[in-house]
């Protein structure tokens, strides 16, 4: 049985004068997943998230959240009722205190979890009477996360949630997120350029480059499918092309030939036998390797 899709974008495009931010982005985020959106700076992650929240109007294509059109004013309000959003700018209201901002936000959400807010205020050690403008970057991020988590949202959209945080604060934020998802079953769609962070918490991942998804799927499936085949020859490795499906990149280094494949490692080894290698080994690859291979190929 397939999981229902919470976020779906089809051919999503956004053009800012002469800059193409999104160039036919296709994504499907399953319900209940922790979905990491990986990409370099400027790849289109923030624009994609803003489009889903109705902050940016797409130039072409469709974006749906909960089956509702994200670019229509009326349905966008319905989406925002059920979604918590943390922007990468953490631009909260500077002149309010922490307690004021919590009370302000609570007023817009009938399903606001006051008990949860009180718990996060304590565990994040947020000073309630302090003005937001006087908070550290870490405390601002924790407050922004609290405001997103406690609204009883079914979906969290987090744009670079841990950027600029020290490792301890980043870990605190990630642990809070993991425990919230475990308890509440919320779907999380988050962007990051920290591959380790995505590997730590995501179960689905997409790699986005120049406004297009170059890879999308369940992290376990990707780990299972992607392989590096290392072939060693007696003399210099032959300059050859592989015809097996799934070959992403072939690299020659002296006697060694390295084949990076998205699938079909066994078939590649079979094809390589005709070249007479002295050894042929298949290695698992990390998400970082997949990311670098795909991004450098696109580049």
């Amino acid at each position, binding site marked *: 049985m397939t999981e229902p899709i919470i976020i779906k974008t089809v051919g999503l495009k956004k053009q800012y004068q002469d800059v193409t931010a999104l160039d036919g982005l296709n994504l499907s985020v399953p319900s209940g997943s922790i979905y990491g959106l990986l990409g370099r700076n400027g790849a289109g992650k923030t624009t994609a998230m803003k489009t889903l929240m*109705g902050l940016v109007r797409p130039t072409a294509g469709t974006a749906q959240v909960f089956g509702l059109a994200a670019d229509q*004013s009326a349905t966008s*309000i319905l989406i925002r009722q059920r979604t918590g959003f943390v*922007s990468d700018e953490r631009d909260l209201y500077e002149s309010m205190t922490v307690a004021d901002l919590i009370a302000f936000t609570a007023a817009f959400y009938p399903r606001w979890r006051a008990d949860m807010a009180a718990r996060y205020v304590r565990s994040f050690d947020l000073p309630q009477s302090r003005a937001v403008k006087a908070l550290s970057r870490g405390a601002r991020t924790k407050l922004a996360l609290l405001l997103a988590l406690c609204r009883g949202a079914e979906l969290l959209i987090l744009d670079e949630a841990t950027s600029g945080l020290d490792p301890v604060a980043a870990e605190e934020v990630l642990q809070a997120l993991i425990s919230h998802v475990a308890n509440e079953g919320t779907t999380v769609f988050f962007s990051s350029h920290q591959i380790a962070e995505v590997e730590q918490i995501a179960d689905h991942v997409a790699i986005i480059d120049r406004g297009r998804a170059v890879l999308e799927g369940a992290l376990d499936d990707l780990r299972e499918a992607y392989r590096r085949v290392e072939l060693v020859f007696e003399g210099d490795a032959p300059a050859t092309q592989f015809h097996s499906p799934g070959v992403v990149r072939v690299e020659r280094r002296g006697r060694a030939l390295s084949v990076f494949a998205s699938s079909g490692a066994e078939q590649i080894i079979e094809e390589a036998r005709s070249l007479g290698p002295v050894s042929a080994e298949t290695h698992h690859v990390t998400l970082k390797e997949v990311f670098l291979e795909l991004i450098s190929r696109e580049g």
Partner: protein
Amino acid sequence: MLWYKAWLDTRWRFLIGLALIICTALGNALTYPTVQGILEEASRNGSPNGPLASEINLAVQLSSSFRGYVWDQVVHHNMYYLWTLFAVLLAADGALSQRTGALFTLSLPVSRRRLCAVRAAADLLELGLLALLPLLAVTLTAPAVGHSYALADALIHAIHMLIGGTFFYCLTLLLAAVFEDRWRPILLALALAIFSGVSTEFMPALAAFSPVGVMTGESYFHTGAPAWTGLLIWPAVAASLFFCAVRRIEDRDY
């Protein structure tokens, strides 16, 4: 809660504006006996000549009564410029304040139209107080200089100021929705306000075609009849500008 946010965003501009306009109005009103003496002395020394003669003669003529003096000095001159300045400053952030927290505001389950409407309503409420409270202060303190200023005059002039002045407020909102920076809307709106004020000073006939005539309540002061045409036309123009500003904000990317 959006009202509370609007108040937090604007309170310092409002309070500074209120203090400044009240001080200026009271400064004018309480120095009436001194100014009246100077003007009487000047008129006893013969009629002035030169390009400003008609202005001086008009000031002398208006200052013969406390009501005329308050209208000329407080409403027609100081309040028009100061009130407009603060109307422009309040609107310069745009209907959706973009300085801080815009993304947070837009992530709330509220339409942009409602955000704009609440912010504009809060601003106009403050501008109403900026128009009314200084004139009420004059009404309350006039007995201190041996005169009186009618509550009805204070109320009607405040209404004229607010209704006519919505044009400058909404114009600035539209400019703020069009331009990315804060300064161009402020400078353009103030330039128009100053040009309108100065041009009607020297060509009073133009007052009928500008919001200045409505804001200063010239018709009411001279004839006792409110400037009905202007009171209908300028709010309609302002509403159109506001509608355009909202449409622009609704279509805008953040």
